[in-house]
C-alpha cells in the first residue's frame, strides 16, 4: 500500500468528516441552545439535496442549486420549528424523539410522493470536475477537494458567528442558561427559529454537496443522521468544537478503517474471510470508538453537562 | 455517650476559582438539633451535598456513626442510616402517598429484586409504612396521589419516608421552606420530638424555628464556619451580627 493511497484515503476521510461536521453542528447547536433532540435533521439534509437537484435540473447552474438547497432547507426548518418544534421544548425527550420521528415519516413519504421513488441525479459542475494534481504527485478529484474547502470555510464562518457577533453571544448565553436570556429581554422565539433554521441550512448544504457524489434519494439522510449523533456524542453535546473534532475523528476512522482493516486482516487470514471479517469490523468501528470514548468521558470529549 | 454521631473535618470544595467550602469542621451530637444558618450563597447546599454523598469534597474527612464515610456514595450512606429531606421535595409524584412510604420501607429492607409478589400487599412493609405515616400525621391521606398534596403535606411525606429507614441521623435542608405559620409550628414541634430518636443537622432560614429548636447553631459565611455555639452565644456574637446586618433581626 502506497503513500499515495494512504493520503488519498486521508483526504476522503477529511471530506467525509467535514460533511459530518455540517450535519453535527446543526444538531449540537439545536440541542445546546434549545435542549431538543431532533431526529428529523436527516430529513432536512434530504430536502437540501432534492432542492439542489431540482434547481440544477431546471437552471443547469450548480451555484444556484447550492443556494436553493440552503434556502429550501432553511425554509423547511423554519416552518417545522414554528409549527411543531416549538411545542416540544418543554416536553421530555421521549416526546421529542417520537414527534421528530413522525416528522421523518412525513418528510420521507412526502418527498417520495412529490418526486417518486427513483433517485434524482445531481451532476458535478464541469468547472469542478476532474482530478487536480496536489503536491506530491497525488491525483485527487477537484470536487472532493472543493467540498473540504467549502466545509472548512463554512466551519470558520460558524465559529466567527458564534464568537464575534451579537447573535453568537445570544446563542452562547442561551446554551448556558435558557431562562436567563429570556429574562434579559432577548426574543427567544425568534432566536430559536433562527438557530433551528441555521442548523437546517447547514444540513441542506451538506446534502446538496454530497448529492453530487452519491445519488439523491429518499432516506439518504438517515445513515448520515446516525453518524452525526455518534459525532456529537463523541464530541460532547452542545459543543461546536466537539462536533468538528468528533466529525473528523469519525470520518477518518470510518474511511481509513474501511479501507485498511480488510487489508490488515489479509495479512493474518485467507483473503475471503479477511475481506468479510474486515468489512464487518470496519462497519462497527465507529460505534466501538464511541463506546470507548464514553467509557472514559461519559459526557464526550468537550461536553459540559448535558 | 457523647461521641458525635456525625463529624465533618476540614472539608474543602472549590468550583474553579470559587471556594464553596473552606476548611469546614463541625459535628453533630446525639440527641441534639444543630442548625446551620448563613446568608444566601454561603455554601450551605454545597456542604449538605457533601455530607449526603452527592458531591465529593476536594479535601477533608467525614465520619458518621463511628465510620469514615468520605468515600461512600449516596446509596451506601443511606444504608448506613443517613436520613435526608430535600429543600425541593424529591418524591415520586405519580405514586400514592402510601406507595412512596412503602418505597422507603423497601429501601430499609435493602433488596428490591422480588419480581413476583405484589409489593403493596406485603404486610411487613405496609406496617412500617403506616407507622411512619401515623407519626407524621398523614395516615388519612394514604391513598392520595402525591402530586395532589399540599406543600406542607409533601414535606411531611418526605419525613415519613425518611423515618422508614430508621435513620440514625437526619440531614434536613430547609424543611420550613414554603410552609405557612401553622405548618411551621407543627413541623417545629414534630422535629423537637424527633431529636431523641436521631439527631438532626438542619439547614434553615426561618430564624424563629432555628432559635426554638436548635441546641447549637453554626453560622456559615462565604464557605467558612465563622461561629458555633448556643443560641444565646450566636445572638451576641459580633461577627455574626456583622454578617447578618440588614438581613435578619437577631435581637
Amino acid at each position, binding site marked *: 500500500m502506497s503513500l499515495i493511497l494512504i493520503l488519498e484515503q486521508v483526504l476522503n476521510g477529511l471530506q467525509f468528516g467535514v460533511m459530518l461536521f455540517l450535519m453535527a453542528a446543526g444538531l449540537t447547536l439545536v*440541542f445546546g441552545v434549545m435542549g431538543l*433532540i431532533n431526529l428529523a435533521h436527516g430529513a432536512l439534509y434530504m430536502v437540501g439535496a432534492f432542492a439542489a437537484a431540482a434547481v440544477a435540473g431546471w437552471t443547469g447552474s450548480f451555484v444556484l442549486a447550492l443556494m436553493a438547497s440552503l434556502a429550501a432547507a432553511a425554509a423547511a426548518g423554519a416552518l417545522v420549528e414554528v409549527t*411543531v418544534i416549538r*411545542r416540544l421544548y418543554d416536553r421530555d*425527550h*421521549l*416526546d421529542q*424523539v*417520537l*414527534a421528530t*420521528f*413522525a*416528522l421523518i*415519516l*412525513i418528510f*420521507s*413519504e*412526502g418527498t417520495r410522493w412529490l418526486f417518486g421513488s427513483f433517485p434524482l441525479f445531481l451532476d458535478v459542475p464541469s468547472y469542478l470536475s476532474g482530478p487536480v494534481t496536489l503536491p506530491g504527485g497525488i491525483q485527487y478529484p477537484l470536487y472532493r477537494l472543493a467540498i473540504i474547502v467549502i466545509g472548512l470555510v463554512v466551519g470558520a464562518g460558524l465559529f466567527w458567528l458564534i464568537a464575534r457577533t451579537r447573535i453568537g453571544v445570544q446563542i452562547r448565553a442561551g446554551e448556558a442558561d435558557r431562562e436567563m436570556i429570556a429574562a434579559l429581554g432577548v426574543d427567544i422565539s425568534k432566536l430559536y427559529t433562527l438557530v433551528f433554521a441555521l442548523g437546517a441550512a447547514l444540513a441542506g448544504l451538506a446534502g446538496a454537496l454530497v448529492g453530487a457524489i452519491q445519488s439523491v434519494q429518499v432516506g439518504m439522510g438517515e445513515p448520515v443522521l*446516525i453518524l452525526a449523533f*455518534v459525532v*456529537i*456524542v463523541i464530541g460532547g*453535546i452542545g459543543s461546536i468544537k466537539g462536533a468538528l473534532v468528533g466529525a473528523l475523528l469519525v470520518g477518518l476512522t470510518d474511511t481509513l478503517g474501511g479501507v485498511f482493516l480488510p487489508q490488515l486482516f489479509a495479512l493474518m487470514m485467507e483473503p475471503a474471510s479477511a475481506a468479510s471479517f474486515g*468489512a*464487518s469490523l470496519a*462497519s*462497527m468501528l465507529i*460505534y*466501538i470508538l464511541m*463506546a470507548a470514548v*464514553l467509557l472514559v468521558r*461519559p*459526557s*464526550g470529549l468537550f461536553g459540559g453537562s*448535558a | 455517650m457523647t461521641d458525635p454521631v456525625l463529624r465533618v473535618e476540614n472539608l474543602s470544595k472549590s468550583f474553579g476559582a470559587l471556594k464553596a467550602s473552606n476548611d469546614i469542621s463541625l459535628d453533630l451530637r446525639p440527641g441534639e438539633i444543630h442548625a446551620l444558618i448563613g446568608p444566601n450563597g454561603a455554601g450551605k447546599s454545597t456542604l449538605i451535598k457533601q455530607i449526603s454523598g452527592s458531591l465529593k469534597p476536594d479535601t477533608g474527612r467525614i465520619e458518621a456513626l463511628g465510620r469514615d464515610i468520605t468515600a461512600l456514595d*449516596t*446509596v451506601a450512606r443511606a*444504608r448506613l442510616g443517613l436520613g435526608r429531606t430535600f429543600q425541593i421535595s*424529591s418524591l*415520586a*409524584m*405519580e*405514586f400514592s402517598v402510601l406507595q*412512596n412510604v*412503602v*418505597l422507603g420501607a*423497601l429501601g*430499609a429492607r*435493602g*433488596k*428490591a*429484586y*422480588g*419480581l*413476583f*409478589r*405484589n409489593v403493596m400487599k*406485603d404486610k411487613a412493609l405496609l406496617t412500617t409504612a403506616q407507622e411512619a405515616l401515623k407519626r407524621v400525621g398523614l395516615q388519612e391521606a394514604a391513598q392520595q*396521589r402525591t402530586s395532589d398534596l399540599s406543600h406542607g403535606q409533601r414535606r411531611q411525606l418526605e419525613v415519613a419516608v425518611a423515618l422508614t*429507614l430508621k435513620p440514625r441521623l437526619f440531614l434536613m435542608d430547609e424543611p420550613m421552606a414554603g410552609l405557612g405559620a401553622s405548618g411551621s409550628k407543627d413541623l417545629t414541634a414534630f422535629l423537637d420530638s424527633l431529636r431523641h430518636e436521631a439527631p438532626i443537622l438542619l439547614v434553615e432560614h426561618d430564624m424563629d424555628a432555628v432559635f426554638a429548636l436548635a441546641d447549637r447553631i453554626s453560622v456559615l459565611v462565604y464557605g467558612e464556619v465563622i461561629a458555633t455555639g448556643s443560641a444565646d452565644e450566636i445572638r451576641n456574637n459580633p461577627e455574626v451580627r456583622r454578617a447578618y446586618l440588614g438581613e435578619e433581626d437577631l435581637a
Partner: protein
Amino acid sequence: MALLLVPLMAWKMDEPFLITLATKVTILALAGVGLNIALGLGGLVSLGHAAFFGIGGYAMGILASHAQNYEPLFSWPFLFEGSNQMPLIWLVAVLASAAAALVIGALSLRTSGVYFIMITLAFGQMLYYFTISWSAYGGEDGLSIWVRNEMPGVNTLDPIQFFAVTFVILCLTLWFAARVAQSAFGLALSAARQSEERVETVGLAPFKLRLIAFVISGAITGLAGALFADLMRFVSPTMLSWHTSGEIMIFVILGGVGRLYGPVVGAAVYILLEHLLGGISEYWQIFLGLLLLGMVLFARGGLIGALLGREVAHD
C-alpha cells in the same frame, strides 16, 4: 381489558390471511411488551431495541438454516447441527438477546438522558451494519427458512395452531409483565423513573434496577424476534434497523406508555392502519406520521389513556 384480546380470537374461524395478520399483531405486541418494561416502567428511551428483535430472529435463522442444510453449527465440545425445534430456538433467542442487553445496558446505562437515547440508537445501528456485512447468513439479502420450525404436539404450518402458540406466549408474558409491575422491583424501578434522587436516598441503586429491567426487556423482545422470523420464514437485517426500533416504540406509544395492554392495542392499531390506509394510498406512512405527531402533541397517554384517564402509577 381482556376484551381487547377477544377480537383476536374471533377471527379464528375465518380466512387464513386474517389469522396470519392476527399472529403478526400478537408477535409485534410481544415485542412492544418487552420494550414497555424498559420504556414505560423504567423510563428508559431505548431507540435500539430492534437490535434484540433482530438477535432473536437471527438466533432462529442460524439454528434453523443449519438444521435444514444439515451443516453442523459447531463440532466442539459436541456436534451440534442446529435445530428446528421451537422451544430450543426460543431458549437460545432469549439467552442471546438477554446477553446482548446485558452488555449494551451495562455500557449505555452509565449515561442518561439524550446520551442514552443516542447510544442505544448507535448500538442498534452497529448490530444492523454487522448483520448486513455477515455474508455467511445472507448479508443484506437476508436468510430464508423454507420450512417452519417444529413444536412438539403442534402442527406449526397450520396458521391457527401457530397463532395459538404465539397467543399463549403473549398471554404468559402479559401475566409476567403485570406481576413485575406490581412487584417490589417494579415499584423501585418506577420510582427511579420519577425521581432518581429519591431512590438513592432510600438506599436502592437505580443502575442495578435499570440494568435488570433492560435485560428482561431485551429478552422478551428477542423472543418476539424469533417468533417473527418463524412467521415470515425470513430473517433480514431490516429487523435491526432503527426504523424497526421506531416502529416498536410507536406500538407502545399508540396504546399508551406504561399501560399493560398498551402494546397490544398499539400493535393492533398499527397493523390495521397499515392495511386499511395502505390499501388507499402507497404513502400511508404520512398519515401515520401525522397521527403520531398529533398524539404526541395533543393526546398524551395513548389510546388507553384517552379511554381510561389518568391512573395512579403502579396500581
